[in-house]
């Protein structure tokens, strides 16, 4: 009587084993034959939807955030291409934009050379999170590096050298860029050539010491000459510094930017911008580890003598308090209260609920 079930079991096991073998052979063969000489593609996407309720007469309600698509292609051992396209909801339409397009040749860890359109390597947030709402703890970016910021050149078009220095205990790395700088609309990069003869350049040094695993500090400098739409040529220097501890329990990110502007024709007309934020978060432990409360303080202060930004209404202060719930490995729900003041015009409160996600295979 027991013979038939045993035979059935062996058949089932055999079929399972053969199926697994076939799948394994297929996978093994595919990976081994690819062997990095054939182009390999990787896709990733980000998106978010928010509900915003706030004081005053500004718009609130539901907002579809940026839908972002990335594609990376490895074209051999050292050459790769990275593309990023976003679709951003506007009043009556979506604006589609090439956010990044980078073709990179990696000579070694120390020397990687690329050309294209980048997130300008200034500070931390601009290159660490940028369009990835799911990546960042909070619902939105700090005001000083918001989309369309005039304080920080968010993108630049040109060439970039970057690298890490293997074998050093400080985990040193660098970025050095040379490119078009800002457009006449200073919130945009010069995508179709430099607006004047003077190119922008930047350097950034980062350290991630092995001894303090999770800590990253950085220092950067950016220089450009700008020809804005409605004013004379202006010289711009930006110094940035940051420290980030990203182990999540706790997470601490502090970033500071000092920007100085000076009329090229009259150096006595000058002014500065100081902007900073400090963000603290803590991922709870054990059964509550899907929850991550956070707080952020922000301030931007623009000199009334600044020839570029004095009249742009960029003075800003904010206190942000929220909680993130990672209810799925690839999606998070965030609830955030914000008390903020734009251009010294009185404080307002708002509440934002956001679901954000990442599409990837990992």
């Amino acid at each position: 009587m027991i013979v038939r079930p045993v035979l059935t079991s062996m058949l089932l096991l055999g079929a399972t084993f053969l199926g697994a073998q076939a799948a394994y052979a297929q996978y093994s063969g595919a990976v081994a034959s690819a062997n990095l000489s054939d182009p390999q593609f990787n896709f990733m996407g980000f998106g978010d939807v928010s509900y915003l309720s706030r004081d005053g007469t500004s718009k609130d309600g539901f907002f579809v955030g940026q839908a972002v698509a990335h594609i990376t292609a490895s074209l051999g051992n050292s050459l790769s291409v990275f593309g990023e396209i976003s679709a951003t909801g506007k009043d009556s339409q979506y604006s589609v934009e090439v956010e990044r397009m980078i073709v990179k040749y990696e000579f070694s860890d120390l020397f990687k050379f690329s050309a294209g359109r980048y997130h300008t390597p200034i500070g931390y947030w601009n290159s660490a999170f940028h369009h990835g709402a799911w990546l960042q703890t909070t619902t939105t970016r700090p005001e000083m590096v918001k989309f369309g910021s005039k304080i920080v050149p968010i993108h630049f078009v040109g060439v970039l050298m970057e690298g890490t220095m293997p074998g050093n205990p400080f985990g040193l790395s660098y970025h050095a860029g040379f490119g078009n700088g800002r457009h006449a609309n200073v919130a945009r990069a010069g995508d179709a050539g430099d607006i004047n003869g003077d190119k922008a350049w930047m350097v950034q040094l980062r350290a991630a010491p092995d001894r303090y695993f999770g800590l990253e500090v950085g220092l950067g400098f950016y220089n450009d000459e700008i020809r804005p739409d409605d004013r004379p040529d202006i010289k711009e220097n930006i110094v940035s510094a940051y420290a980030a501890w990203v182990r999540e329990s706790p997470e601490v990110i502090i970033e500071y930017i000092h920007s100085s502007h000076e009329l090229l024709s009259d150096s006595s007309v000058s002014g500065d911008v100081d902007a900073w934020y400090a963000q603290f978060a803590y991922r709870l432990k054990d059964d509550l580890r899907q929850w991550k409360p956070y707080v952020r303080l922000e301030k931007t202060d623009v000199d009334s003598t600044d020839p570029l930004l004095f009249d742009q209404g960029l003075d800003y202060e904010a206190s942000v308090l929220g909680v993130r719930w990672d209810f799925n490995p690839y999606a998070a729900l965030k609830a955030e209260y914000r008390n903020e003041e734009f251009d010294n015009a009185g404080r307002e409160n708002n509440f934002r609920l956001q679901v954000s996600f990442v599409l990837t295979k990992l």
Partner: protein
Amino acid sequence: MHMTMRVKSTARQIRQSLLVICSLFFLLPSAAMPEESIGQNGLAIIVHKDTNVDNLSMTALRNIFLANQQFWPNRSRIILLVRAPQSDERDFVLNTIYQMDEAQFRKYWIAKMFRAEVPRGPKIVFSTGMTRDLVVAIPGSISFLRADQVTDDIKLLRIDGKLPSDEGYPLK
């Protein structure tokens, strides 16, 4: 009546088959391959046979696994193979080398790809046999196995100058 009896008989056979399969799954691991914990034998770091490296410091190993170092000294690209979730070897590596849990590990690689610092995440392997086969097949590859599962066709690296059998090996 006859039909009802046949259905009951088939159902009983299926139950018995499932019972036998379950028993086999419980018995096989203990009978066929008694495995000691990774902590006792150590986790071996293995590379493709032609890799011109014999020893890595723990710092260098972490930098390779974090993709902060992506090239071997001879400029060939490092191909990192990582076991799929829910294997003891992966858990050990996440604890000791990455010092991350699964969610942090996933987010780390997504962020790395987002910043265009790596063209892709690590290649995922699903078994010891697959790990060995792919390290043999792919030049520049690096991965990990239980120390008692290393074979002659792959190269075993020293970590901080020590092999898994040595006292003070850091991956025990």
